[in-house]
Structure formats: C-alpha cells, structure tokens
C-alpha cells in the first residue's frame, strides 16, 4: 500500500484514505461566459497526461477531508512531494531515487 503524506495532517497515511481529484493548477477563467468554445474545451476537457512528472490534486477524503496538491511520477507511481492547496507549483523538486530504501 502506498503511503501518502498529507500536508494538513503532517504525516504519511495509507492510500485508502485518499482520492485522486484530477490535474492541479488548472485556472478557471474569471469570465467564463466570455470564453470561446475552443478555450472552454481546452479548460474543461484537455489534460496534459504526461509520461513522468504530473501535478495532481488529491483529497484526504477519509481523514482531514482537505484537498491538497501532489507531484507524482506516472512511470514509477511514486509521490515526489505534496503541498497545501493554494501554494504555487514548487520550482525545485526533491530528488528521489527509484531504489527501495530500507527504513
């Protein structure tokens, strides 16, 4: 089972308590009615779906119930870091190795 660090609970919790909530940092237009159909389609349907680092929203559904953001590698499924909702995209990501480290 994956352990995911919740930035509000300040500790690692089992993945069963969490829900994925799609891609993070998608800004909603302040003037939604003025959006063209193409722009709205991009905002509403088009997601980056990268192979590698992805920024996602997660929710600690069965815990503090708060939304937060996480950086995850879609290849290894490893969480690189998590941070509170509303905080900017981290500029420097911590390096993590793909080897299993005994604790």
């Amino acid at each position, binding site marked *: 089972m994956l352990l995911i660090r919740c930035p*509000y609970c*300040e500790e690692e*919790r*089992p993945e*069963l*308590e969490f829900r994925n909530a799609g891609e993070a940092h998608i800004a909603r237009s302040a003037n939604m009615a003025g959006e063209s159909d193409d722009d709205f389609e991009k905002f509403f349907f088009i997601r980056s779906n990268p192979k590698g680092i992805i920024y996602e929203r997660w929710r600690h559904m*069965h*815990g*503090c*119930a708060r939304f937060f953001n996480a950086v995850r590698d879609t290849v290894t499924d490893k969480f690189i870091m998590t941070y509170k909702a509303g905080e900017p995209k981290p500029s420097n990501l911590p390096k993590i190795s793909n080897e299993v480290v005994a604790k």
Partner: protein
Amino acid sequence: MAKAAAKKTAPAASPSIERRPALAGRSTAATGAKVEALPPADRISLRAPETSTAALSKALGVTLPKKPKTSTMKAGRTALWLGPDEWLVIDEAGNDPLADCAAVSALHSAVGISHRNIAIAVTGAGAAAAINSGCPQDLSLDAFPVGAASRTILGKAEIVLLRTAADAFRVECWRSFSDYVFTFLSEGSRDAAI
C-alpha cells in the same frame, strides 16, 4: 430492536421522541478484545476559523485541539481534531454542546449530530489488532498514542477513531453503517485472538 422497544414505555403524550439507539446493548467478547455498543451521547460537528477557536473553547469548556490527530478532554466532553478547521465534540455527561455554541457570536458552524453517530468501544489486549483488521492506520502506541484521534476508514465505512487508553478505542460511525462496523469489529476481535 423489538426488545429495546418493548422495554421502554414512552409517555403517551410524546410518542415521537422515544429514542431507539441502533445497536443498543449489543456486545461481543472474544479472547483478545471486547466489542460493545456505547450509550448515546451528545455530539456536534464544529467548523470554525482560527479566530473563533478561543471563544468556542471557552463556551464549550474544553480547549479545541490545534494539532493534527489529537484530542482534548474535560469533564466528560471530548473535542477531536478532524481537520484544520473541523472538530467533533462528544459530550457524555448529558450537556448539549450545541446549546453552549449557540451563545457564541464568533463565526462558526455547529451542527448537532448526536443521532447520526453510534459509538462502539473496542477494549482488551487485542483491540488494536481488531481494528486493524479493516483499518490501515498504524495503531502502535508510538504512532497513535492515548488521546490520539483521527477520521479514517474501517473496511468500506468511514469511522472516527479515538484511543481512550493503551488497550481501548472508541469507534464512531454513522448510524446506517453501525451494523456493518459492529459486525466487522466483532469478526476482527475473533481474528485478533488467533
């Protein structure tokens, strides 16, 4: 259920206020752990910004905890940290915390959930093992000390877990899930003895 209904003779004038708690009186005892339904209590779900916590703590008579996964207790009233601005307040002394919050003018939302939740006590040497049969959290005393409280899951149902002693837990679940949670814990307590 029928037995509980027969025992209580509600006054004829107010038959609608007769309370029939789910699981009333149910308990199972295995070698390692005992699972039993706890008596009804007064509860509120409290949401408030940080600026209101001092006034609410004063009105409730119990300091609202600010640290994750902690709880505070005073005179039969327990405040459990559920989220950064969310608490569950349980009163077992019969004083409604909702009435205490009503007098507070500071911004807050208090919702009475006394009848929504059912409390189950899991006690004994195998209590943690019984809960861990369906709950993925680390319940060792280092990670989950006495007084620690957390919303989490048990099998398919959401629960609020509070450690009341080294070998005792209070499990709060929604009334409609109570039969499932009680049975799950009973099975778990049997497994914990092995």
